[in-house]
């Protein structure tokens, strides 16, 4: 296979990326040994694009999201190499203060999975949102280093910020925003709390929102409402989203592009339609085939997800793969550009529509 890294780089430059993760390696130190949780990940998010990061539990999607934000658990996690470039700057080499001032909660915001534990139960929603706005409103000056926690909130700005909070709460279709602000978090249902979280993620006018399984805890009709709302809002505002999920149906609903991870390696990166109709990686194909269908047979993936402490060499999927050869265990396949924005890391990519496997 003559795939060249040069083709890959050229294909990627053409995408005018906002965020680009290159060869990122993160280890976790545990009692039983060092787990290589991210093993040379590449990921790109272009401006205005919704990218889905899918994979089974333990594949490293949340670790990747946290590594981008620089909020990996300090004691256990170790970044061993690679780069996270955001708007041309490497986030890994910046100091914590700069990250806090300019990136976290401003240019990149976060929607958590669990809308139940993400609010403090003892303060009103208004207090909590205005606390955020005090520091992270687009009207607040960026360089606030040295300012004290007790710095007052200028009244003019408070009024303007409060108005944009109300406007954003209307945009996320929260009923009676002015009254809602005075209530405590427990007075809201899960769906409404997730609407509040989306509003808080949008308020600093970020370039990128990282959403970590934001609809997993919701019922299906509420999930449909939230997905519809989130997609409409980010498209209207031109915000990029990195959306992690283990649910392929959800990824199909919200994404423009899908990246699939397995055991800490990215396997395939493709536009949504290609990903679901003509995936090239054997893992992607087995994963899609295991989604239950109305009358088709149930198809699982034999074997179990490997431990990341003693992960298989080369392509980590090779012990469970139908196409595996000696080559697969010897080294990890280089990125292979199937088409402009379709990249697969496999020595034996499949060139057939997904139905061919049934």
């Amino acid at each position, binding site marked *: 296979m003559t795939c060249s890294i040069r083709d890959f780089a050229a294909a990627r430059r053409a995408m005018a990326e906002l965020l680009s993760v290159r060869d990122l390696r993160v280890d976790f130190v545990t009692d039983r040994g060092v787990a290589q949780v991210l093993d040379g990940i590449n990921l790109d998010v272009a401006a205005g694009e919704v990218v889905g990061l899918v994979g089974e539990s333990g594949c490293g999607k949340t670790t990747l999201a946290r590594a981008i934000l620089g909020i990996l658990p300090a004691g256990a996690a170790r970044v061993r190499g690679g780069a996270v470039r955001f708007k041309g700057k490497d986030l890994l080499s910046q100091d914590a203060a700069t990250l806090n001032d300019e990136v976290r909660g401003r240019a990149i915001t976060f929607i958590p999975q669990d809308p139940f534990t993400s609010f403090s139960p003892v303060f009103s929603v208004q207090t909590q949102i205005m606390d955020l706005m005090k520091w992270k409103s687009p009207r607040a000056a960026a360089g606030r280093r040295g300012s004290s926690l007790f710095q007052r909130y200028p009244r003019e700005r408070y009024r303007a910020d409060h108005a944009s909070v109300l406007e954003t709460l209307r945009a996320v279709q929260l009923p009676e925003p002015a009254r809602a602000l005075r209530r405590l978090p427990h007075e809201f249902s899960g769906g409404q709390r997730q609407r509040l979280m989306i509003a808080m993620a949008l308020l600093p006018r970020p370039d990128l929102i990282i959403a970590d399984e934001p609809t997993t805890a919701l019922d*299906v009709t509420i*999930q449909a*409402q939230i997905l519809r709302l989130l997609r409409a809002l980010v498209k209207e505002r031109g915000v990029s989203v990195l959306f992690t999920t283990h649910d392929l149906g959800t990824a199909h*609903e919200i994404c423009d592009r899908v990246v699939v991870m397995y055991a800490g390696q990215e396997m395939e990166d493709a536009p949504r339609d290609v990903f679901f109709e003509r995936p090239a990686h054997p893992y992607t194909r087995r994963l*899609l085939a295991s989604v*239950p*269908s109305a009358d088709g047979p*149930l198809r699982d993936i034999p074997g*179990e997800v490997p431990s990341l402490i003693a992960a298989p060499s080369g392509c980590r999927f090779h012990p469970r793969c139908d196409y595996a050869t000696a080559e697969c265990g010897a080294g990890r396949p280089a990125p292979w550009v199937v088409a402009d924005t379709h990249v697969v890391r496999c020595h034996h990519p499949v060139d057939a529509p997904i139905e061919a496997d049934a």
Partner: protein
Amino acid sequence: MSDALLELVDLVRYFPIRNAFGRRVAWLRALDGVSLSVMPGETLGLVGESGCGKSTLGKTVMGIYAPMAGEIRFAGREIGHLPKRERRAVAKDLQYVYQDPGASLDPRWKVVHSLHEPLKIHTTLSRADREREVSAILAAVGLPDAHLDLYPHELSGGQQRRVGLARILTLHPRMVILDEPTSGLDVSVQASVLKLFRSLQAAFALTYVFISHDLAVVRAMCARIAVMYLGKIVELGDTPAVFEKPRHPYTQSLLAAVPRIGGRRVTLDFALEGEPPNPRDVPSGCRFRTRCPLVQDVCAVEEPPLREVGGQRVACHFA
């Protein structure tokens, strides 16, 4: 009576809501007159969103909650109001699987101990007979005999799950209630668990009640489904018919909300607004009327009964 294995007639279970002084201030109507029957050998799916009462239904049938009214007939015998001792004997035929059957293993017991226990309690088999029985069951769930001498923590999560199922099957129950058996599993693991359920059903002639919020899983597993909303069954019918032509507006919205792979994004057309009302404050008349696109005046006044519409049973005035 009919030849149904399980028959529920107007089953009611409310939970009291108490204030800080222990006084009852309201009732949470978790099950509000549920009737259905399950035929021997079939898999009945029970779907609905959180708080609709589907787990309460399973637990009431199991005797974990006592029914407040109505009847539970199992194999032709009313079991809802039996004395404790007699009720316990029913457990041999009627078993319940929690979300993670592996988590209900005692961590200090070897697998062999856990698997022998139900046989000691419910049967008079000799030790040799029990051993034969246990290794047969273990083979059926796909585990080697060598695992008998391991502790639960020495097994992987999937193997623990299999041991948990084996433990339930040692008594050869006639009916197993599966409560959200695949939630929290990844799709590839889910597929192998569902395959296991299917092969066990064939091997042991089991009848399943399959409680789930995942419509794709229910569609793949169940011949018939019952859709619940706020303590009531709103639609009941053969799975293909319900999925192809849902009659109740709630079923229609529920099916429209499920993300589907391939084709257009379904959420773009998703129209249902609002959230389910609090089950302690159930709307008058039809419970779905506060969110229903077809709502008329009659819906607030009259509660629609479950009636036959084109092969399905639907509780809607306009189905």
